[in-house]
């Protein structure tokens, strides 16, 4: 069982090392967390992409990628996501482990040095700002990315439901921002965002692999010595517990199939220890192919191809998603609510409960066989007091009782219904 060692290398910057020798690759991720806010969200969102396109030493996409290819197809990729009310800006570096290469080449050390070059020594012009052409490219890319969210109707509908449901919370902000906020980006605002992130964001660096990590830690330490670390943002996600009024919104697009997304409040988010009970309840409801939603909405009524639910433990919300024919929306909605009521009334067998737990436990065990999933597993726990290994989470799942599940179900309340409907029959 791999264990995690976490050291603070300077204020608000932690380095975690997970020794693991079963993979053919090694991984280093660099994540910056900053509270979501409308004004800065787009400028922060372009930073991971901007930094992974060039640096002072390799000033173009072409030169940088030649270098990565030389490192046996190493990759450095940007991502932007949300963890609770925080925007998570991550750069992940991934490369082949020396043990499997034709020549010993200190692959991970070379890659880690390159990663530091990208983050701390970007390609700047004479005025010390980012080049206009780089900024223009990033602006176009982010605008296109925001627009293309609409291409995948499932993702789009899910995003809309969250946006409406959490309109008065930070979590309701799209992690890329809006087309308008992206259009207002400039070389100056983006430079300030980069500086601000290095100085004020909460930073988690993680390494998973077989190699020696001292050289790598020292390189990051050295780089942060030149940065004046300021105040750490307070790590607090707003958890809304009560719903005053159910919001329903319908939008129409020229599609053949309707998407239905229902957002619920669960009253339960981390660090509440009842989170495990909600996890099990959610899986029983719509998280497995034997779940109540799958068996009833899909299999019994044949209303849809998918009907599933997902629980976000950092924010304490559940989203139930389905795609149905327009005339079946009401039927599907009614059946979904019926299934929740069923759990509240305890209408599920002990076998069903045990099977759901078995399914969840096995999926949690499997995380340790995937280097990227393992990275994500710990990143999602950034703001948790104690970091749990998958094995500890498994124990908590085991301890969830029938009453815990019923109580978790009794606490959930419908907040928002979003329907994306077709304009043609």
């Amino acid at each position, binding site marked *: 069982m791999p264990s995690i060692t976490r050291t603070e290398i300077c204020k608000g910057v932690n380095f975690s090392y997970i020794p693991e020798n079963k993979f*053919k690759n090694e991984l280093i991720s660099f994540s910056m967390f900053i509270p979501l806010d409308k004004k800065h969200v787009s400028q922060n969102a372009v930073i991971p992409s901007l930094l992974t396109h060039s640096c002072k030493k390799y000033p173009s*996409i072409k030169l940088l990628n030649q270098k990565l*290819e*030389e490192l*046996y197809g*190493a990759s450095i990729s940007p991502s932007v996501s949300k963890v609770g009310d925080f925007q998570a800006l991550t750069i992940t570096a991934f490369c082949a482990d020396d043990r499997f290469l034709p020549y010993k080449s200190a692959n991970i050390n070379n890659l880690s040095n390159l990663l530091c070059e990208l983050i701390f020594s970007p390609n700047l012009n004479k005025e010390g700002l980012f080049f206009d052409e780089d900024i223009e490219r990033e602006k176009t890319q982010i605008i*296109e990315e925001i627009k293309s969210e*609409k291409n995948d109707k499932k993702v789009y509908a899910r995003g809309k439901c969250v946006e409406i449901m959490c309109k008065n919370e930070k979590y309701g902000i799209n992690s890329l921002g809006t087309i308008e906020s992206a259009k207002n980006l400039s070389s100056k605002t983006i430079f300030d965002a980069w500086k601000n992130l290095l100085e004020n964001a909460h930073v988690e660096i993680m390494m998973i692999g077989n190699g020696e990590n001292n050289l790598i830690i020292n390189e990051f330490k050295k780089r942060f010595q030149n940065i004046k670390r300021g105040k750490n943002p307070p790590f607090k996600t707003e958890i809304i517990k009560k719903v005053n009024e159910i919001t329903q919104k319908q939008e129409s697009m020229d599609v053949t199939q309707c998407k239905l997304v229902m957002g619920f409040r669960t009253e339960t988010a981390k660090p509440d220890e009842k989170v495990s009970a909600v996890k099990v309840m959610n899986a029983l409801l719509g998280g*497995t192919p034997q779940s109540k939603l799958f068996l009833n909405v899909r299999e019994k009524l044949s209303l849809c191809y998918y009907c599933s639910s997902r629980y976000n433990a950092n924010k304490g919300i559940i989203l139930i998603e389905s795609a149905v024919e327009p005339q079946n929306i009401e039927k599907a909605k009614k059946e979904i609510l019926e299934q929740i009521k069923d759990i509240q009334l305890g209408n599920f067998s002990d076998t069903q409960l045990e099977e759901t737990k078995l399914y969840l436990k096995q999926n949690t065990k499997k995380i340790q066989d995937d*280097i990227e999933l393992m990275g994500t597993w710990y990143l999602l726990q950034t703001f948790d007091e104690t970091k749990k290994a998958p094995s500890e989470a498994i124990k908590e799942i085991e301890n969830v009782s029938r009453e815990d599940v019923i109580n978790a179900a009794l606490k959930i309340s419908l907040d928002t219904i979003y329907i994306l409907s077709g304009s043609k029959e």
Partner: protein
Amino acid sequence: MNPKKITSEILKENYFYMKHPSGLDIYVYPKKDYNSKYAIIGSNFGSINNKFKLKNELSYTNIPDGTAHYLEHKLFESKKGDAFELFSKTGASANAYTSFEKTAYLFSCADNFDKSLEILLEFVQSPYFTEQGVLKERGIISQEIKMYSDSPDWKVLLNLLDALYKNHPVKIDIAGSVESISKITPETLYECYNAFYNLSNMCLCVVGDVDYMKVFEIVDKNLKFSPAVEVERFFPDEPHEISKKEVTERLDMETSMFNIGFKENISKGERVSVKDLVYHDLIISAISSKSSNMYDELIKSQSINEVSFSNEYLEGPGYASVIFSGESQNPKKACEIIKKHIEKAHKNGIDKKTFERAKKYAYGQSLAVFNGVSSIANLQLDFALAGKEIFEYLETLKNADFSEINAHLGKKLNIDNSAVSIVKPKNE
């Protein structure tokens, strides 16, 4: 039982192969220290196999489009109940998929592997197709078909295949249409099942921290013998030329998407070799990787949405096409740039330095495949059904020689046999 051991010096790993007396090909790839175990069983029966006959039959049978996929959905049901329900007892995650050239059933788990393997073998050997069951599935599959018809990336690919191929059934949607599936009956399903799900036409791959001899024993105990069946698959003649140069469709979406495909000459029913695959990967990397001139111009001219740019080698019995795809504000321009750089490569050849870099890149990429039980098992099934061996790829790549690359390039990426498919927003 006398399994054969196949070793990779590069990966420092091995797997075991056995042909079971029933005809089933079995592969077991032990993966030490992994919690996950994965098993997949598949048949060379995909959406393209819409006309076939048994060896002793006189005439070919045509089946409705989407039958292979429909059969995949229905095989989960048996007299004893739904296979998902049986898997829920063991906690395994089960799934299945149908592609152009094959159908596969799989599960992954951490515990109770033996029991789950028994369930998998049991249900793929126990067809139970009833009038009522087949009818019930129609609603679900119709919803699945409609979901894909709203999906721009699926639409743009299908339209491309329709433009590239004149007769080959790879141009037909895997799931068929709402109309075609309404013609599928229990009899259709039984007929296909008896032909393609005969054990001599199937292959099982297991990956995980397992004792290979024990796996062979479980399999042996759970196979039902039936005489081998030989199926003859019919494929129409496919000319070298493409069908249409360009297709455009408008959908309710925000950003245009394109696919540009280059059709290759493949003999009827044949597959490309491992060596072809290796040189394919080297050529594509040399011409279109992020360090290439093609990519540089696509980005600088803002004709592509960076994250969306990708390529695929769509390859199966009797067809192979190289496809570049992406989201673009100016799809036509993007396609022109892609073609321009391909023409240049044909004219000037790939230089040694670029070749060496591409080789290192491909090496790292293929190592990563061997990290996960699911990626290994799926690769193994894919290769086994196509008559290829998985370790051969890395070996061939290691020995790939610069002197051969340009000869391979000469056979690929023929501009005259290329087609473009574009999907655009309605309001543009």
